[in-house]
């Protein structure tokens, strides 16, 4: 079994897979990669199962030593990675020789870059998943972000290097968006049309204190009609909640399973990956689509992921 040594961890690097579903009744949200598309494609490049665990780096990447070498793929945003001073391309498989160091730096595009490794990162699963849930300190490596000196095991597999890339045409269709498509929220009718116009007509800026639990936005305040307090109810991934301040919050992968603020809109499934690539100070707009369109887009996206010419050898 080979390993990855954390020389420097970067700003916030965690072990993530596609999350743990089914534990909502215990108050446990799914967690998982913020840009699940990037993780899935990284794993596909390596011949891993799509849901194998990888490392999710945030804004500033780390340096990792591979004492026994391995095969890796970097996906998501460009963190300017090098392998012994040579640039490492995104969206392709790369062979790492024993003793080589992968260095990455500040992002050149979006918020997250994924380091996938052939065989997957091996940690003790919590409720069936390797995903780190930072708020509760559970899952991943001791429920926390990686630190200098951590050593991660890599799942047993004979390293087989095959030169693979993701088709450019597919990548173009998966480019993160700054216009997030949403369906109507559960409490949309709490917001008068003037508020709706403010919400859909203006830009919302991502605040610095955003995290995997929620993206806090700021912009012209969107106010609900006063209708008393809402009874706490289940919150779905991507729900856009509006607290008294009128500044929207997008509930994200480490979301609370329930909430008590009115939900004006809900980001559609195909745009979750784009939410995962938003950086602080990025500006987004919301665009409403019908439920049927959201579904059609999801079907189209999965067709793209299943297509034979997605991964080129």
């Amino acid at each position, binding site marked *: 079994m080979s390993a990855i040594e954390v020389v420097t961890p970067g700003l916030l690097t965690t072990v993530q897979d596609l999350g743990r*579903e*089914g*534990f*909502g*009744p*215990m*108050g*446990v949200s*799914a967690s998982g990669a913020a840009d699940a598309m990037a993780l899935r494609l990284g794993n596909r490049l390596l011949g891993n199962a799509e849901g194998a665990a990888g490392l999710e780096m945030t804004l500033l990447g780390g340096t990792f030593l591979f004492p026994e070498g391995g095969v890796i793929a970097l996906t998501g945003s460009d963190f300017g990675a090098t392998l012994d001073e040579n640039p490492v391309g995104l969206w392709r498989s790369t062979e790492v020789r024993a003793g080589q160091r992968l260095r990455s730096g500040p992002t050149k595009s979006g918020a997250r870059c994924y380091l996938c490794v052939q065989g997957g990162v091996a940690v003790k699963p*919590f*409720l069936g998943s390797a995903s780190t*849930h930072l*708020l*509760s*300190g*559970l899952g991943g490596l001791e*429920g926390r972000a990686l630190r200098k000196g951590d050593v991660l095991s890599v799942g047993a597999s004979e390293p087989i290097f095959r030169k693979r890339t993701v088709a450019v045409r597919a990548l173009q269709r998966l480019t993160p968006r700054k216009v997030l498509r949403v*369906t109507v*929220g*559960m409490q949309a009718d709490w917001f008068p049309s003037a508020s709706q116009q403010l919400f859909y007509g203006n830009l919302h800026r991502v605040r610095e204190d955003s995290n995997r639990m929620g993206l806090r936005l700021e912009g012209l305040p969107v106010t609900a009609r006063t209708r008393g307090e809402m*009874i*706490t*109810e*289940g*919150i*779905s*991934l*991507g*729900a856009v909640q509006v607290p008294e301040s009128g500044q929207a919050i997008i509930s994200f992968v480490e979301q*609370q*399973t*329930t909430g008590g603020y009115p*939900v004006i809109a*809900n*980001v*559609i*499934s195909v745009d979750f990956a784009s939410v995962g690539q938003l950086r602080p100070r990025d500006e987004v707009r919301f665009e409403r689509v019908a*439920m049927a369109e*959201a*579904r059609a887009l*999801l*079907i189209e996206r*999965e067709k793209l992921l299943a297509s034979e010419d997605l991964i080129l050898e």
Partner: protein
Amino acid sequence: MPTSPGVRFLPASDRALLISFGDEIAQESHEQVAKLLRFLELEPIPGVRNFHPAYSSLLITFDALRLTHAELEAVLRRHLEGAKQLRLPEPRKVEIPVCYGGEYGPDLNDVAALRGAKTETVIELHAATQYVVYFLGFVPGFAYLGELPDGLITPRLATPRRSVPPGSVGIAGRQTGVYPLPTPGGWRLIGRTPVAMFRPDSGSRLAIGDRVRFVPISGDRFAAMEKEQARA
């Protein structure tokens, strides 16, 4: 097709459907939530991925490639009658030891002052009531317990704490609960339990439908139990 009065199906997102049993916190609607949840756990619907129960509603998330809202609603409508007939197991009775006040309950005095009561009265009231676990939410293992006696109803803190020590027993509005993990929190803290409410190996101490009583303990007992727990 039998329709239950007052039951509404609402699409929450392109992968979630909310079933609402009413617009108030009531024992009856809660029981319907608990029964449907139990029914669906016993008879899983292919394509359903997760449940988020709350006071009077159940959010069901599903694989949108396998199910549509309409298809899921149709299956659920067929199941509603069966769920209604389901007999829930006898509720588990759980006692949670709590050391009230002092460093463990930094807001106890404020709660007493807000209610014009003695701190002893606040403790007695809180410990004399049997609470129902309406649902778990917020973070892993956080149980929403109700209802708090009228004499204890106070608003949340104007400014939430950045980090609440695990085991802290809080109250807010008509609710009470125990913070299982060090998280931010805006409820008023009146005591703390040495018992772990969520463990990675065994999961949550409480489950939906449990009946809970808080049992006052001394600081010495708290320390002894904390030690025991650390060894376990």
